[in-house]
């Protein structure tokens, strides 16, 4: 039966980027499940933890943030959040954390199954909330926790001392995992993993930079989906291949004057923040209905892990979006806005993320001034549907569209 239902849909071309990227994302869960079934130890891993470590050691890991986004996009965010809240977790806490802590308790989710972990790998270059969340997982599940502490760089570039500190932790985790899992570090494999990561990153950077064309060859919502592979699988050879395919497809679109953005691209904006996964369709069509294409986000820059040495790799981990100071964060975004001819900035004030939202009002004001573009914010959440109002979103996006329209008339 299930087979028949599937056949009714147009088959996805197995040579397409969509197919390849989707497969990589799905395989991550399947591989971890198989490894667990074989009796191997598997881990849960924070999204910006250096993937080079588990990849080189040959350890299967799953990404709770990715799982939480999937669960939220498939409509079960609130149910899961409420399970965590019943245990005393405040509804002010990150909804990814609540969804995952609920999963850790009930150990099942039909929206996105995931094997239970034997260890957790945590890195706070995304936020400090990660440490607290993973500490709790380690205690509740009685499993070891490995951390790499990457503090906020308060200087424009990370200091040498920070790079040294993070490097030392990198090897400390490697040795800890070798001891726990019996896997052995292999420098040759590490080299290969680094090459894979760089290859995927180069293709990603190139693909996302194609938004500079008018119209853009892609709908920016594609970035939100594809970025999962960049986050979690960029150390795998298939990731580079899939990203190159994506790049070729978008180059092809430019040649043919086509785009994955359906309709006329009247306005080009940058979207700031994590997607509102429970309302992906609503947020996307709110833009499309007004001819607005989100041509870029900080993700376009964030996963450019193209490095030439170990120190450079560490430095990039110290420069992920939430690990850099206001000035560096602002300048990266200004570059994206200018390179991609952005006409407006839409900010998702994400209730879940205190780190991302903490200095957003000031930073977006500075970006708006530097690029001479309107800035509009809406309230939402990456996984808890209770923190989003469709009416407010519509009003704000309409307001943004009107200002961009008026600006066009003046110019």
């Amino acid at each position, binding site marked *: 039966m299930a087979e028949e239902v599937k056949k009714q849909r147009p088959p996805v071309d197995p040579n397409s980027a969509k197919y390849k990227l989707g497969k990589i994302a799905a395989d991550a869960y399947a591989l971890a499940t198989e490894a667990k079934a074989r009796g191997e130890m598997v881990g849960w891993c924070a999204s910006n933890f250096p993937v080079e470590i588990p990849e080189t050691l040959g350890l299967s890991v799953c990404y709770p943030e990715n799982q939480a986004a999937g669960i939220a996009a498939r409509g079960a965010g609130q149910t899961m959040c409420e399970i965590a809240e019943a245990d005393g977790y405040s509804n*002010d*806490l990150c909804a990814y954390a609540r969804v995952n802590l609920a999963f850790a308790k009930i150990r099942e989710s039909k929206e996105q199954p995931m094997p239970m972990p034997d260890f957790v790998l945590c890195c706070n270059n995304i936020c400090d909330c990660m440490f607290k969340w993973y*500490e709790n997982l380690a205690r509740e599940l009685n499993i070891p926790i490995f951390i*790499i*502490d990457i503090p906020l760089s*308060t200087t424009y570039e990370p200091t040498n001392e920070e790079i040294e500190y993070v490097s030392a932790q990198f090897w400390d985790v490697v040795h800890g995992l070798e001891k726990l899992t019996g896997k052995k570090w292999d420098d040759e494999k590490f080299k290969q993993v680094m090459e894979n990561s760089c290859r995927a990153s180069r293709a990603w950077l190139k693909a996302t930079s194609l938004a500079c064309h008018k119209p853009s060859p892609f709908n920016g919502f594609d970035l939100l989906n594809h970025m999962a592979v960049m986050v979690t699988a960029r150390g795998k050879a298939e990731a580079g291949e899939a990203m190159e395919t994506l790049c070729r497809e978008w180059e092809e679109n430019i040649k043919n004057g086509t785009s994955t953005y359906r309709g006329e691209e009247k306005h080009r904006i940058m979207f700031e923040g994590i997607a509102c996964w429970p309302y992906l369709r609503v947020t996307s069509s709110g833009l499309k209905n007004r001819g607005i294409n989100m041509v870029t986000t900080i993700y376009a820059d964030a996963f450019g892990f193209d490095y030439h040495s170990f120190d450079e790799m560490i430095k990039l981990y110290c420069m992920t979006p939430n690990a850099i*100071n206001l000035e560096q964060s602002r300048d990266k975004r200004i570059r994206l806005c200018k390179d991609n001819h952005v006409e407006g900035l839409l900010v998702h004030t994400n*209730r879940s993320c*205190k780190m991302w939202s903490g200095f957003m009002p000031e930073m977006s004001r500075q970006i708006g001034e530097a690029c001479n573009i309107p800035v509009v914010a809406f309230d939402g959440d990456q996984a808890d549907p209770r923190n989003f109002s469709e009416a407010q979103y519509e009003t704000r996006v309409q307001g943004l569209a009107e200002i961009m329209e008026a600006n066009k008339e003046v110019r």
Partner: protein
Amino acid sequence: MTANELFAKCAEIAQNPRAQMDKYLAQGKKVVLTAPYYAPEEIVDSMGAVPMGVWGADMELNDSKKFFPTFICSIVQGIVELGINHVYDGASAIIMPMLCDSLKGAGQNFKAAVPSIPFIPMTYPQNRFADFGAKYCKANYLTVISELEKALATEFDEAKLAGSIKVFNDHNQAMREFAEVAAMHPEVTAQQRSDVFKSAMFMTKAEHTAIVRQLIDAIKAQEPGKGRIPVYVSGILTDSPELNAIFDSCGLHIVMDDVAAQSRAYRTDAPVEGAPLDCLVKKFQNTGNDSVLYDPLKKHVDLVPDQAKQYGAKGVIFVLTKFCDPEEFDYPLIKKACDAAGIPSVQIEIDRQMVRYEQARTILEAFIDVLS
């Protein structure tokens, strides 16, 4: 002076931080603001300046709202609000450790909102137990020192730091002893207890130690008052007069606390053997049992029921600062640990913008029924 006179003195200072600052400035001293948590105040003291704690204030937030979304804790928003409104004018710098996401954002906002006060971040290593953590901590202390040298136009002298470490250890010891003595004397009110801790933020540690030592002697000389209900309090900040009035009118006696603005700050001394700056690093490495510090074994979770039992508390009260991630993550586990230990617990949520405390009162009154 009697205990009550000394308590009144602490209350006076706790309520008037600006008067304290003006007093020090008039004496020709420089003032360095220290934001939560664990700012290296010994360094400031050794450089001849007075460190003064900044934790916001009980007030409505207006100007800070241009910088923060609504869901950031009122402590950090308050710091920026007061900075914008010139309440800190005259300070030579602000040191802000960034041990939570809200503090990280607040530092960046302070820099933009209050450009007249030099912003000195202190980046602590959360992965602090190994040598690499110590090395990084020391490097960042050195950065703070070089920024302070600029802001204070003076040079750092490590020998003087040794002296300041002794002064601070002495103060820690006095504060710990005060908490112990207050636990034996139910007549010490929640408000008085709070005033002693709060006044410590606005005085030189040497001055405060002298008052606290006199106070300890004066309390010890008193006959312990009539027994009230012994409770243990955990949280970030519990200095609100309204909150303390509820504790007092409900007949609660705080026998020990795990409050960041109170006992958490005084649990750990710096060792005195070795190079002074290394001693300060060691102090940070040895600090723990706090929601804002990486805690792989979650010792903080066990500390609360353990101490509550040790001090004979009948119940645990969590005073949650609204929007505080670190505390909100620890709470469910601590509650579970208290349940397992058979200690009743309750949570009340507070916010520095709060004006109505009826809900807190109702919750506490119901809790007291459970305890008795």
